[in-house]
Every structure is written in C-alpha cells, then in structure tokens.
C-alpha cells in the first residue's frame, strides 16, 4: 500500500494488508490527529487497508495562538 503523509510531504510504501489502527501505530501517529482517507472515503480505525490501496493521512491539527 502507498501511504501519503500530507504536510510531511512524504510517501511510504508498505507491504501486506493491515488495519488502520495498526498502520497508525506503526507510523507513530495518534488516531485523534489525522483523517484516514481512501479516495473519497473516510476510514475508521478498524477498517482493513488492502495491499493495493492508496491512503492519505491528513493532519487535523492547526494552530498558532490567535
């Protein structure tokens, strides 16, 4: 699978299928901090990502104190 880490400007290729929560743990990403996007769909943490999927991890944290 290809995982696009938006804002970090990098992509990661991983072999095999796995659940979203396992992918996030592997990449050290807290579920609360990203949307997991496949195409036009959002995935919950128990969804299984297939080997040929392209996944975007879109960060949700914005900031600066204003």
């Amino acid at each position: 699978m290809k995982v696009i880490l938006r804002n970090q400007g990098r992509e990661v290729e991983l072999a095999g299928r796995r659940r979203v929560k396992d992918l996030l743990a592997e990449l050290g990403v807290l579920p609360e901090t990203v949307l997991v996007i496949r195409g036009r769909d959002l995935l919950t943490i128990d969804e299984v990502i297939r080997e040929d999927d392209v996944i975007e991890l879109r960060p949700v944290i914005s900031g600066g104190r204003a």
Partner: protein
Amino acid sequence: MKCRKCGGRAVLELRRHNTAFCAGDFLDFFRHQTLETIRRWKMLSRDEPVLVAVSGGKDSLALWDVLLEAGYTTAGLYIDLGIFDYSRESKARCQAFAAGRDARLIVVSVAEEVGAGIPQVKDVTRRPTCSACGLSKRYIMNRAALDHGFGVVATGHNLDDEAATLLGSTLRWDESSLARQTPVLEVTHPKLARRIKPLFRLSERETAAYAFLRGIDYIVEECPFARGATSISHKEVLNRLEDVSPGSKASFLLGFLERARPRFQAGESVDLRECLRCGQTTTGEVCAFCKLADQVRRAAPRSAVPLGSAALEPTDPAPLRGLAADLSAASEIHAS
C-alpha cells in the same frame, strides 16, 4: 464499525462518545452539536446577522457552511495576513467557498491596515508572530463588524483550540486569561461586537471530517509561522491524554467553564475606554493596534511600505516601550 444510528458502514469513530457514524448521520450530528451550542449558550438569535471570520481552513469554513445551511444571515470576513503563498491560497479558498454559495465575503488586508503584512510585522516587533497576528485579527474583526453593521462575530475555534488555550493559561496560572476564556465574549462596551465560538464542543478531527465529507476545499497546509508554536505542543500533549483516556479534552474544558471559571471571573474587572487615535477599545490611551502600526511605520522606509489608515493617523510621540504589555492586554480583552 457500524453507524450507531442507521447500522450502515461508519466513516468516523468518536471515541469520547463511544460511538461511530456513517457520513450522513455524522453530518447531522455535527450540525446538531453546533446549533445546539448556539442555542444553549445564547450565542445568536435566529434573525441576528453574524459576521463569520474565515481563514480558508477547515474550522471556519465548516462553521460558515453550517450557519448558511441553517439559514442564518451571514457574511464572511477574510483577513489577508500577507503571508506569501499561504495567504494567497487561503484567500482563494474563501473566495471560491463564498462564490459557490452566493455568500458575501468581506476582505480586509493587514498590510493596508497596519502598514505591512505579518512577516514584516514579525521582524519589526520581535514578538512571537502569533501574538502580533492575533492582535491584528482581533482588532480587524471587531472593527469590520462595527463598520459593516454586525453585532456578532463568529470564529471557528474548536474544542482542541480551546482546551489548548486553557492548558497554556493554567500552566502559567494566568488568572486574567482564565477569567476571560469563554465561548461567548459578551459586549462590555458599545464598540465591542459579541464574539462567539459555536464549534467549541467539537474536536478538530470532527471539523476536519465535516469539511471533508461536505466537499469543502479548505487549506490543509499549516501557516508557516505556526510551526513550533506553543499551542501546537499543548495540543499534542492533550491528544496523548485523549488517546489513553477519551473525553479528557472535553472534560477539561467543559469542567473549567462550568465550575472553575466563575471563581476567576469574580475578581476580574477591566476599565475599557476608546483609543484616542482610532476609537476602538483599549485599556490605555492609545490601543495596541495603533502602536503596532506606529512601530511598523517607523521601522520601514516610507517608500517601501503601503501605509494604511491606522498608520496614517498622527503618530504618538511616546516611545513604544509599553507595546509588549499592550499586546498582552489586548489579547486578554479580546481573548479567544
């Protein structure tokens, strides 16, 4: 995972509510939470026009979308901070959003108002960028509301924003900030618009999900000056807590508003007057925004800086020794 309401495939789990929703039911949940917050906190009456401060990001555009869908009379206010491509792209997002919904968008440029964009202001003041930026935004929001006949300004502050602000204030035991942190900043002077935060009970992830599912084209890229900001490190800490104990952020913030804030409010009293220069509210004689404009004007060659109305006002001969304190005071008065 299945949707709690319809049993269909869920697209988002909400661990703090121990639930999950499909796309349609999540959108309903989000709208209901927002409108119920407005009702319960008496933020807005149905026929009251509201100015929505939009940045091009997920939160403010999601808020504007909900208010428009619910039939409120709104206009958007985009403040052009002059932050290179980030501002150009965020402005384009706001303009496209407004055009697609036939909504009114008011655009105000910091460069025209203060004499320079935020990157130059940062260099001149040597203050944290977010501080000068926040001061400029609060000032412009309030003045634009009054200029265009709005008594209320709505901002897209979410649960994570508010919890992070609360954590920061608590770590410093900043009693003034704690006294003033509220989702409804009531009018305490005829020249102040009411400031409301209808998304304060919804998490950042929920506003992002709403924007995504509604097809809102928001700017995902972060403001370049926000990298390394303290508020972001506070959010990271809170997210770690949330991960091991879902609901921590909401409990921290809502518990504070309900039980702790009144104790800080008790000793708080601010004497507001009108700035001798621009007429906006201040605790001193000249407001922090006018002083900021003065500082920019003095630092930049006249030919290089497009001076705005604030900078063209007569300058205060007094040195700007108190600028830091004024920035801080203004931040508290209009604190988010």
